[in-house]
């Protein structure tokens, strides 16, 4: 049967992997290519590499890192950050990435999803979204509003509505990165993960808040997610991918 995927996320700034809480207090964690290789060797199912400063610095993504990661791992990986056009997507895919991830760009210009899906196939187009919990149920029926630009901007868009629309436009996969849970290591926001997973017919990836293996099991069983992103819990060395897999219960995994 289809297995649940565990996907390490590498946030890259100046060719180094960094990790902060809610995009603040970034600390240096290592070389992205070495870390990608280590997680690959340890059995991760996929990888995500974000060039987290490309957009802010108004420059295209660092294609050298994409090419270097592609040389050392033999599993699919997605790349995001600094993607602003179909040309950027093509460069990333030709460098060896399997998927490109768009977030703020898709909110500003949703047709990038349909254009990308038409040019490269839906399976290449990942929509990242950063929903934040809200009490304003009149405006946001799901109880979550989409934010962009590293959680700084509120968009006025309902999270589930946006997920449905993006899937309809051709997004092949949706990463639900909860603003409230991000960096807390207290578990994924299962509520919004499940709402979106149940609303769309494309795979949903839980993101933000992974701190221990049971959180990933919960993302599968209670969050209805197809995959989960891990970052801090493995980057600090507290857990390895193989230990996470060994400790997860009731979830089909690639061994």
């Amino acid at each position, binding site marked *: *049967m289809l*297995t649940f995927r565990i996907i390490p996320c590498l946030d890259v700034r100046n060719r180094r992997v960094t990790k902060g809480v809610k995009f603040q207090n970034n600390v240096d964690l290592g070389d992205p290519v070495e870390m990608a290789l280590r997680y690959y060797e340890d059995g991760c199912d996929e990888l995500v590499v974000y060039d987290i400063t490309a957009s802010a610095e108004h420059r295209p993504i660092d294609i050298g890192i994409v090419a270097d990661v592609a040389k050392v791992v033999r599993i699919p990986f997605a790349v995001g950050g600094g993607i602003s056009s179909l040309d950027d997507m093509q460069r990333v895919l*030709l460098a060896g990435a399997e998927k490109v991830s768009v977030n703020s760009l898709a909110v500003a210009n949703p047709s990038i999803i349909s254009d990308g899906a038409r040019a490269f196939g839906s*399976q290449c187009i990942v929509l990242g979204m950063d929903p934040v919990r809200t009490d304003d149920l009149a405006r946001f029926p799901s109880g979550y509003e989409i934010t962009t630009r590293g959680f700084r901007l509120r968009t006025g868009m309902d999270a589930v509505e946006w997920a449905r629309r993006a899937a309809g436009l051709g997004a092949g996969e949706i990463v639900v990165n909860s603003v409230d849970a991000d960096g807390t290591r207290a578990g994924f926001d299962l509520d919004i993960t499940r709402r979106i997973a149940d609303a769309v017919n494309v795979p949903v990836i839980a993101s933000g808040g992974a701190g221990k293996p049971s959180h990933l099991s919960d993302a599968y069983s209670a969050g209805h997610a*197809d995959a989960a992103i891990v970052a801090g819990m493995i980057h600090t060395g507290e857990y390895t991918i193989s230990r996470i897999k060994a400790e997860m219960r009731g979830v089909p995994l690639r061994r």
Partner: protein
Amino acid sequence: MIAIIDYKAGNLTSVRLAVEALGACARVTSAPGDILSAERIIFPGVGAAAAAMGTLASLGLDNAIRGAISNGTPFIGICLGAQILFERSAEDGGVGTLGILPGEVVRLAPREPRAKIPHMGWNQADFHKAHPVLDGIRDGSDFYFVHSYRMAPARNGDILTTTDYAGEVFASSVARGNIVATQFHIEKSGKTGLRMLSNFLAWDGKESPKC
């Protein structure tokens, strides 16, 4: 020379990098002459069957592929490259394909109502026969899949592995003579996929006798 057939159907970088990771060298080519003179051929591809068939015909690659296969050249089709070896595909309302392998390609029909299409991610391949390309690989190993259609070979004896997606068991790879066709992406399937690619690069194109 190892030829990777380029017919504008998706991204060939990961296939080329996987071959290079094994210390081999491949030529990414659209030239029928390269296909006919290659020692072995990799036929990848992602995308729609009708567009792919149009491109193959316009480049003269359809006949080059038939020629190379009838010459006994070891040949592996991957994903779309596996599917269009069959006679027809249900994609795009029905399209005639290369007709080299007996059978057709149909849309996935998983039994579980919540199952998503495409079938994307890692799933197990259960062995149905012995074959040199499976040397050193454990029965039931996981491979990486991304597809909405599946191969439906006419002959059960051609089935190399099957995979269960949400209650639908389908042929995830096929082997017949000098042809291997895999629905899964061996170039993205970690060490297991790399082992299968390495086995293919060492293969003489003959099915081993039954043990």
